[in-house]
């Protein structure tokens, strides 16, 4: 079956909040279309919005976790990488207290992800050292 759909989503660039359609053909992105009758973007987009699909499949995308070994970042499994992060954060928390750890959430991630990371920082680590680039 040939599958073509247009997925309505929100532009990941500036704060205007234009929505757009990602055109998906057989599971791959083939383009962007604006959303007509949307209260903000009104069927239009800027040049960044029109090209929003372009970086998603870029060859530079990170595909596997990486751990620094002997000064170099080397590919690792999720198990190893998350295991190491959990171990280290636990260690610092125990040895130097929760405030020896700081977290940056992201103006590029979703509300849910921001919520989770600050919850992680406050509930699991126990610090208010949580910020993001709002000022930058």
């Amino acid at each position: 079956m040939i599958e073509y759909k247009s997925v309505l989503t929100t532009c990941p660039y500036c704060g205007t909040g234009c929505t757009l359609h990602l055109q998906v053909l057989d599971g791959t992105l083939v383009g962007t279309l604006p959303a007509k009758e949307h209260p903000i973007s009104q069927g239009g987009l800027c040049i960044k919005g029109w090209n929003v699909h372009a970086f998603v499949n870029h060859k530079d995308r990170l595909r596997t976790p990486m751990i620094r070994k002997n000064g170099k970042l080397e590919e690792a499994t999720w198990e190893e990488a998350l295991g190491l992060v959990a171990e280290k954060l636990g260690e610092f928390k125990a040895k130097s207290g929760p405030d020896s750890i700081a977290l940056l959430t992201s103006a590029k991630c979703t509300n849910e992800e921001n919520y989770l990371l600050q919850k992680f920082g406050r509930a699991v680590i126990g610090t208010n050292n949580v910020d993001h680039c709002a000022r930058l």
Partner: protein
Amino acid sequence: MTNSIPEFEENTNCFFVIGSNTSEGHPLIATRMLKAQKRGAKIIVVDPRKNQIGHWADIFYTFRPGTDVALFNGLMNVIISEGLEDKAFIAERTEDFEALKTLVAEYTPEKVAEISGVPADGIREIARTYAKAKPAAILYAMGITQHTTGVDNVKSTSNLAMLCGNMGIPGGGVNPLRGQNNVQGACDMGGLPNVYPGYQAVTIPDVQKKFQDAWGSAGPLTVGLTVTEMLHAAQEGKVRALYVMGENPMVSDPDLNHVRHCLEETEFLVVQDIFMTETAEMAHVVLPGVTFAEKDGTFSNTERRVQRVRKAIEPIGDSKPDWVIICELAKKMGATGFDFASPSDIMTEINALTPSYGGITYARLEELGSLQWPCPTVEHAGTPYLHKGKFARGLGKFFPLEFKEPAELPDEEYPFTLTTGRLMFHFHTGSMTRRSEKLDSEVPTAYVEINVRDAEKLGLNGDKRVRVTSRRGEIELDARVTDDIKRGVIFIPFHFAEAAANKLTNSAIDPVAKIPEYKVCAVKVEIVK
């Protein structure tokens, strides 16, 4: 933003744009202003550079970077001395007007002209146009906030808006245009050192208890560190581990040489991102997250409008949605309360703990498309504009503010003022747009804008390569000679790591908001032989 974007087209009669390159930073908000202009609304733009929006404006003036408070005081001086203020609004809804009146009386248009470079008659013209065209909206962006007087600047905008009764009405208000798609949401969700989700202060014991009850454990009663403070603390060894999700301080933060040094001092740096950013290259562990196209969720735009992000394709390679990574990490550390099956589940928890998001559910977003907070219950229709009838604190407070000079002024050795900003074709640290062929071909690398006459004085004939140096660092890049920038000011877009404007910028911060002064620092320019 206190108000909404659709109101600009329908209601606003005057736009006062200051510190915002709207046509490049927020193109579709700028074109909304054009639509309003066609029905007679006036556009006023004041900026050190004549951007495209400046070319569209009915009234345009350049001014000296960092003199915003003086300019606002001058405008209010004219409005009060000509009796154009909204007396009923001031009497009913505000306090401390007399103090403001006394202070701004000192700021005559002539005096302000000397400080800001806007001619006295220009100040009168702007003041009259703004005051007579109700509803009038003030629009600003980082040009107002990224100063050591950032908080004063913001308070000045609301002083002016209240003075003319432009608060709590459709099409008016004070409208900071947020630069990133979800910077509003990141703040709303408590991605700040002083508040839990929904701006509930960490210092209030009842709030702490609320989150302890919900999560089993919560943060301390003391305010945490901001980005800038974290980096200093890392250098001092007080912060030993740093977890960075989707940020790139190695390009975005001020005084990059210092940032590099701080990150090198960090014992354990975890970076969760979609590309090998300049920051990720320094990490001990790199976790591959996914782009907006590969996950579900919500973003909150600059007008507090919460909208859905929908998964269109499967994650690339072994990458995972950021929310999945955090849940897995938390569980690895033995935490409970991270068993979410979907972002919709997470939103249910947010609904319960964040009063302003109480009624923003996935089911409602599916039906309505978007909802603007505050939206406390599932019956609530959302809030297009704030402060209707009453301010959150009761009466609106006027803040009499004296003008203060920026932290670093040009001098003989560093005679130019550097201001930084954005381009239409790129975004923030460029990690996405510079990997987009079309966008990259428009502007493949950094440049510095310099006034024609300044260029002549330097002996720059045409566009050539120059070295720009500040007290903190130096970069080499191409010059772009133009009429559209004030003399004595140069502009460098901050998207480009190879000629990072932030190697030059000053990390002096606003004492309250802790925002660095990106918009003013002193530099010199030399031709590269």
